[in-house]
């Protein structure tokens, strides 16, 4: 491992940021497919130069790109995401039934063992899989066909399946997060699904402890402790230690527990990072100060990490896909903002520096340690 590659998705193109292991000087690529939205890019853990990218446009729909040289060149692959079987309905914002309509791919999760296999989480919420390097896609429709599917409803950003986690100790165990349906687990590679929402409380729901309807923003997992998950819900930071069977709140002393991103230190499974956002009506940090909060105790006790981050007049947001960590000895932490900045820390969040100031609004940041 001698360097780091950041795959940055923005509202107006993808960017590849590269550095050596010192992470002091960065090369910023030219825009890849400038003008297109890139909701997510992610590399295969077993073939890092194989990178999948979700490219979309309100005008031209969804397209998919694949690179086999770490983002230097791209090949357009399959973009036919057709729901399997009877389309059915979910709940619309006003509670009326609404047919499922494919809009875009929010998240790509390459297999942990096969570079040609990749999962895609889409809006309206569904899980797709490709086993031929993205050329063709088929829906794992038992998720959408879950008995609660007709009760799922969109969050403000649409009804998106934004988190896919593959248990590194059991590749048949999958977790997904859906805004605003909740969280689900499959123990049989997507054949059957179980809502895992016990312990979640969402006061805006008619039944705050309902099995579905929770606006889950992001779920993170450390590979060494696959039974433990950390969740940034719409409000509340949550934790489970039993694969989602029960959750408990770990917001502790956070100044606000609304936010989007959550991630775990590469070498310390009890060290967690969040970026608190003032409220769901004001999608920017409190008091104009951009602060990453770090807990080294698995939650509840949080410390503001501010050195190198703007501490006045800062009103950006950090979206759910826009934080990641590298696996170098001194764990690097990175996040991007809707203001187009990408920040990095090479000391586990103690100090931060800006890698690039002025990209288009950043939607996603994925890190490859190469």
């Amino acid at each position, binding site marked *: 491992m001698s360097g780091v590659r950041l795959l940055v998705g923005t509202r107006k193109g993808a960017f590849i940021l590269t550095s050596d292991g010192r992470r002091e000087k960065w090369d910023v690529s030219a825009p890849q*497919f*400038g*003008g*297109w939205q890139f909701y997510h890019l992610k590399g295969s853990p077993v073939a890092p130069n194989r990178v999948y990218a979700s490219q979309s446009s*309100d*005008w*031209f729909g969804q397209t998919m790109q694949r690179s086999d040289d770490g983002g230097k060149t791209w090949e357009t692959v399959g*973009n036919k995401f*057709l729901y399997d079987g009877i389309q059915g309905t979910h709940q619309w914002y006003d509670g009326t039934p609404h047919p499922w309509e*494919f809009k875009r791919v929010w998240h790509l999760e390459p297999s942990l063992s096969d570079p040609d296999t990749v999962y895609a989480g889409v809006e309206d919420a569904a899980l797709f899989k490709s086993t031929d390097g993205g050329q063709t896609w088929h829906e794992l429709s038992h998720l959408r066909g879950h008995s609660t599917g007709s009760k799922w409803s969109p969050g403000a950003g649409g009804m998106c399946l934004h988190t896919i986690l593959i248990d590194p100790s059991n590749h048949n165990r999958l977790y997904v997060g859906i805004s605003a349906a909740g969280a689900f687990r499959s123990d049989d590679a997507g054949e059957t699904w179980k809502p895992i929402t016990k312990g979640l409380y969402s006061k805006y729901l008619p039944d705050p402890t309902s099995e579905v309807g929770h606006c889950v923003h992001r779920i993170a997992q450390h590979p060494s402790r696959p039974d433990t998950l950390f969740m940034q819900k719409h409000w509340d930071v949550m934790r489970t230690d039993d694969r989602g069977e029960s959750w408990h709140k770990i917001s502790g002393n956070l100044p606000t527990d609304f936010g989007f991103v959550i991630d775990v230190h590469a070498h310390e499974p009890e060290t967690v990072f969040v970026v608190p956002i003032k409220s769901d009506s004001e999608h920017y940090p409190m008091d104009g100060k951009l602060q990453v909060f770090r807990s080294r105790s698995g939650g509840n006790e949080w410390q503001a990490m501010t050195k190198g981050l703007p501490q006045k007049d800062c009103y950006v947001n950090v979206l759910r896909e826009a934080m990641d960590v590298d696996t170098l000895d001194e764990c690097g932490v990175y996040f991007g903002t809707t203001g187009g900045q990408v920040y990095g820390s090479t000391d586990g969040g103690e100090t931060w520096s800006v890698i690039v100031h002025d990209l288009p609004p950043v939607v996603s940041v994925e890190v490859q340690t190469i």
Partner: protein
Amino acid sequence: MVRVELPYHLRQLARVDHEVAVDVSGVVTAGAIIDALETRFPMLRGTIRDHATGQRRPFLRFFACEEDVSFAGLDAPLPEAVADGREPLTILGALAGG
């Protein structure tokens, strides 16, 4: 050959920097032109017509001989000047957004 003007994003996707020409056999319609385009440029599949419905994407319009032919239907014959290559079919994206 039928001439087609693509919007910037689709030229970028197809890796062309100018108007393209495609062979269309039979009656020249918007649907037949898109079929030919997608054969020559497979990366454009689904970007002009929605995969699920087969219909023109709502933020796109088709123009021929300075007339909006978007609502004539994909199977309607286009003007002779487009069919014989004197005029292009122009695919235009809505001028909106940030």
